[in-house]
């Protein structure tokens, strides 16, 4: 699940509350049917891995020692080092790590025990494109084994490649929660048309009960079931269609649209 929202929307706060790091004023947090509070969160130790804000790293330890704080299992340690390709620097002292290396180590610490739930707050921060690709693949592979990921990121183009569901929040409130597939489908059900006579075309479309609107010389037509019928109708009116396309909608557009709608409703 992807958690998205503007700066200050409450993404990190939600994640911290899930981990018992914040006091929850209203509502409750439960993981595996066990309540999580600031004073009691025993369920997290065995079931949850997390990277919140910045990687929690002791500068006097090597990356390997840092991972040993999470697990004693050498097989798990070797697996994560190999998977995230950290062998070249894992035995170096962490104080010499670059931003990207520290971030990789933070992610490795969250994943190494392969917990049931992984909470990642801005995991792509500071990673180079290859590392981002590797992380994406790892998340996909682990998700297929049954692990659940709860990820927040501002790099929406990357986020949308790994998530199945999206949760959009604004000022601490959920404004959208839906499967990505459904979200994409709902945004794809419209066509953009350009014709030699947009005004005439709009009138014809409205007369034939197509949901449509004209904006900046482009007609947006909602959910046309029979495209042939629409095109034939316009051509019969001597209107030439100069361009027709189905816009590709990315997560960024969806987020901006949702936030616009919320702020519009607020006004």
């Amino acid at each position, binding site marked *: 699940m992807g958690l998205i929202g503007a700066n200050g929307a409450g993404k990190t706060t939600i994640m911290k509350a899930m*981990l018992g*790091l914040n006091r929850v004023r209203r509502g409750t947090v439960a993981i595996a049917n066990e309540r999580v509070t600031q*004073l009691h*969160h025993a369920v997290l*130790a065995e079931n949850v891995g997390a990277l*919140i804000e910045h990687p929690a*790293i002791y500068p*006097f330890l090597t990356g390997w*020692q840092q991972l040993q704080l999470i697990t*004693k299992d050498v097989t798990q340690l070797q697996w994560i080092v190999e998977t995230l390709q950290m062998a070249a620097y894992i035995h170096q002292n962490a104080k010499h790590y670059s931003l990207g290396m520290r971030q990789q180590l933070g992610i490795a610490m969250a994943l190494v025990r392969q917990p049931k739930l992984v909470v990642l707050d801005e995991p792509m921060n500071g990673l180079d494109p290859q590392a981002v690709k590797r992380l994406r693949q790892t998340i996909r592979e682990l998700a297929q084994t049954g692990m659940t990921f709860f990820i927040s990121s501002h790099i929406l183009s990357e986020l949308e490649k790994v998530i199945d569901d999206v949760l959009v929040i604004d000022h601490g409130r959920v404004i959208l929660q839906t499967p990505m597939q459904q979200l994409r489908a709902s945004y794809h059900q419209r066509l953009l048309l350009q014709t030699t006579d947009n005004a005439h075309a709009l009138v014809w479309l409205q007369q034939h009960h197509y949901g449509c609107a004209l904006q900046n010389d482009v007609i947006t037509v909602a959910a046309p079931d029979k495209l042939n019928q629409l095109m034939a109708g316009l051509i019969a009116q001597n209107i030439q269609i100069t361009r027709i396309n189905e816009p590709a909608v990315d997560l960024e557009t969806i987020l901006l649209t949702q936030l616009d709608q919320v702020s519009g409703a607020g006004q």
Partner: protein
Amino acid sequence: MNILRIERLKLAAKRGTWWAIALLIILMAGIAVTTTSATLSDQRFNIVSAYVGFQWLMLVLIVVAASCVAMEFEYGTIKQLAVQAKNRWQVYLTKFSLILGYDVCLHVLVVLVTLGLRPIFNPKIDMFANYQHQLSLLSNLMINSFLDFYGSLMIIGLVFLLASVGHSSAIAISVGVAVCFLGEGVSSLALSTFKALAVVLRWNPFNMMCLQEQYANQDYQGITHLTLAQLAGGNLMWTVISIGVGALIFSKRHI
């Protein structure tokens, strides 16, 4: 158990933990060198006080204890640690017990180093000869070591509490050292200045630090206004209070 393993790994991986021990031995050896030409009485006194080893030990302990707690907030690692533990009380108490273990090790080390330095620098001194309280020098050294350890519990508790409040270990170390070396003076000054309030003031935490001195010299009771048993009880009381308050602050602190 897992948190104890984590804490042990960190303590062992810190170079300071080992450098402090090396420094402690060097400083004790340095003092031992200076005692070679001293009178036999002074030599005995130096041996029974472990060549000032107990004081050096306390400094080491304050630094290690303060950084053990404060570094979690300094590096932001408290978040990870809190998720791994059942709750933050567990983290705090595990850290305390680990430092307690380190404290025991340091005291054993100081006694062993004293016993090792004695034949080299003070060969004329017999460890089994009678010293204070009709006990041998060795017994007095062991009792001193135990009393120092007992007194250190309150200091660790206080340092932990201070380290839980601040973002760096500097304040906890400074205050810890000040309390450790000036506390007794402040307490005796307060007790002699406000004699009418002595009934209450004698229970102040700084007064409890005179335990070791009062064991060595019963005349101290005139300064502390407490018996040896009362000092021991007071020490324990302040240790429990400082651990409790410190753990509460540690568990409630915003991270």
